[in-house]
């Protein structure tokens, strides 16, 4: 039996305020649907409306028709795991922390499909094996990386073999490097004849899945159609913006003109707890260039950057900085912007303290704020009241006020939404061009690295990632 789902005029409101307006789409076996939009566009509410898990205080109208029957407003508990399956957001939180991976798959066979335990366990392991998780089947979720947890969740979805599968932000919290892996896993499910609905902010996922795409903005569907036409010839402005924001779509940049060396490293070696992370690395960064540092998780990218800045001490090797430069001119921009600011201080206090510390005039900051489009109203907020993009721009202002010669940018865009990501990348490139700044950019994203950097350095993983026990921890 295969399922087709039709959603029509779906509207979700809280009080008088409409969170979702007139959303419509159809899904058939083999033709997956992807809902594309940024966080806050209300995509996840659509999933909850289909599952029947919307909070009671929200009112919902419209139709959700599964195989000719309107299921909206009915109790759908009996359909869960039998007709409708869900791939949860952030699976490292959705897996039971006290149960081994194979048990979590096997219990679906035992309790949903009614097999005896011995068979259920065998089938559970078989699903994990198919997804390359044989070694992980006796491990607990906390011993698995984020990507591995995602595959365990996929194995659970596969075990249930529901006709309809919903995937809610399957790449959220995962390295960009893993997103193709996830997207291909989902594609395989669709190809097995299941009806698939995927909610994502990631254009690349939509591209891999094909089928149909709906683009959502502020709770409304602004564009809907076959993936090919929506992604290749978008009609709505917002869709165009979203597509342009993806690094693979960025226009090539004017090459930079690097000058003399700001910082160089020779024979750097560093190990943690006896495990070598960096071995015999040579590196030069010139003024006015962007160098991208690529590599999978655990390959020592951030370690190398921190060694250059003197935040870690190398076991062997040496680092030479250009003579006559104050240590203050070597700076860092962080991956998670909120954590780079003291949570209880307003941004104004942070900048005032910086001015006081170095005898700077406040006037020096003003043009920087203007250039980065940071209105003075934002200054009196605390980090928790600002968006990631705003904070990252403040972080760049803070660093630039000290006229740096070298900046380590440690995955500066990976926590930002696509449009802000583009802005921050543009800024870094401009600074290298205009101010002769040497930038070492740590990133996962090959497309961005190729677009931004004059040179790309790739670190290999020190140990095979997939089989290392708990080597990679999932972001909390």
């Amino acid at each position, binding site marked *: 039996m295969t399922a087709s789902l039709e959603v029509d005029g779906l509207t979700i409101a809280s009080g008088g305020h409409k969170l979702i307006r007139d959303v419509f789409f159809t899904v058939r076996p083999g033709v997956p649907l992807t809902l594309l939009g940024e966080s806050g566009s209300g995509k996840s509410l659509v999933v909850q409306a289909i599952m029947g898990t919307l909070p009671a205080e929200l009112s919902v109208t419209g139709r959700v028709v599964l195989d000719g029957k309107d299921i909206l407003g009915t109790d759908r508990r009996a359909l869960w795991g039998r007709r409708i399956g869900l791939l949860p957001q952030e699976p490292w939180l959705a897996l039971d922390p006290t149960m081994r991976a194979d048990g979590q798959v096997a219990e679906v066979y035992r309790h949903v499909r009614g097999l005896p335990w011995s068979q259920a366990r065998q089938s559970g392991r078989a699903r994990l094996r198919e997804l390359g998780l044989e070694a992980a089947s006796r491990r607990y979720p906390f011993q698995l990386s984020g990507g591995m947890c995602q595959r365990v969740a996929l194995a659970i979805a596969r075990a249930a073999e529901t006709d309809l599968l919903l995937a809610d932000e399957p790449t959220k919290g995962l390295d960009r490097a893993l997103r193709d892996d996830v997207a291909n896993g989902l594609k395989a499910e669709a190809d097995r004849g299941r009806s698939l609905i995927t909610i994502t902010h990631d254009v690349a996922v939509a591209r891999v899945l094909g089928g149909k795409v709906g683009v959502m903005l502020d709770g409304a569907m602004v564009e809907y159609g076959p993936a090919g036409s929506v992604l290749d010839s978008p009609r709505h402005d917002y869709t165009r913006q979203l597509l342009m924001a993806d690094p693979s779509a960025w226009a090539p940049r004017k090459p930079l003109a690097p000058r003399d060396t700001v910082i160089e490293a020779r024979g750097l070696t560093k190990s943690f707890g006896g495990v070598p992370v960096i071995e015999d690395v040579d590196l030069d960064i010139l003024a006015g260039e962007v160098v991208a540092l690529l590599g999978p998780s655990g390959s020592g990218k951030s370690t190398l950057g921190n060694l250059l*800045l003197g*935040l870690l001490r190398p076991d062997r090797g040496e680092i030479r900085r250009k003579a006559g430069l104050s240590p*203050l001119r*070597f*700076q*860092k921009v*962080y991956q*998670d912007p909120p*954590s*780079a*600011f*003291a*949570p*209880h*201080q307003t941004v104004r206090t942070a900048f005032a*303290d*910086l001015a006081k*510390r*170095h005898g700077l005039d406040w006037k020096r900051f003003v043009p920087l704020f203007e250039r980065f489009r940071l209105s003075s109203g934002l200054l009196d907020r605390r980090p928790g009241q600002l968006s990631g993009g705003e904070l990252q721009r403040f*972080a760049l202002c*803070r*660093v630039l006020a*000290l006229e740096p010669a070298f900046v380590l940018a440690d995955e500066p865009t990976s926590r930002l939404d696509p449009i802000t990501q583009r802005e921050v990348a543009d800024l870094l490139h401009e600074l290298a061009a205009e101010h002769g700044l040497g930038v070492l950019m740590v990133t996962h994203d090959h497309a961005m690295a190729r677009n931004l950097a004059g040179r790309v350095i790739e670190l290999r993983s020190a140990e095979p990632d997939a089989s290392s026990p708990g080597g990679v921890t999932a972001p909390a």
Partner: protein
Amino acid sequence: MTKTKTMTFTFSRRRAAGAALIGALALFGTLGPAVIAADPAQQDLLAPLAPPGGDYLLGTDHYGRSLLARLAHATRLSLGLAVLTVLSAAIPGTLLGIAAAWAGGIADRALGIVSDMILALPGLLLVLLLAAFAPGQFLPLYLGLALAQWVEYFRVTRATARTLLSRPHVEASRLLGFGPGYIARRLILPELAPVLATLMAFNMGTAVLAISTLSFIGVGLHPPTAEWGSMATELLPYYFEAPFHVLMPAAMILLTVLGFHLLAGEDRS
């Protein structure tokens, strides 16, 4: 959104209630002994166990001593000893905690071992052992309580400071040229202050409980000192004739500890 609002509202209302309660008790303890004419040790053998409301506002105990005067003196004693204990525990505990987190290495380890040693025994057992040196005396009681409590401040401060020191914003501040003084004062202490305030308020309650408990079982301060626990012990044989007299010191303990727990704010476990 509305949920968080109501939560912070009841939260602050609770703290305000605790502060009011403690404020009133502090007034009673500081002004009471000065204002109340009666001497807490003055016996009136013609009026033992007088009921409240006559010549003596709250009545008298079995020796005819004014209960109002005795309760006021006992309040001053308990609050004073609690403040002294908590300050003696909190100040070194906090400073050592920050120092251990900052220095790491051997100093951190050594302090960790010392704190483990003190935590090896339940706190009251340690106080009892020290009290055995000089039963009925003030000093071992105070030393024992402070010794048992500083470890808490040390551990909380060390753990919090350690996490904070490893956070990107502290690293960023170092790179931006800020020194250890700025980092400790402006970045670590403000984050630590609410935790410490909660812990101190809560430990005031713990100290008051311990002082009265030890006196009640006869190991803490002894009669004729006016102290809630020993007053309860002394009045215990008369609970049939004068049940409210026994309950008065008990009620004072309840109000004081309740006040501190409410002031501590969160439902700490």
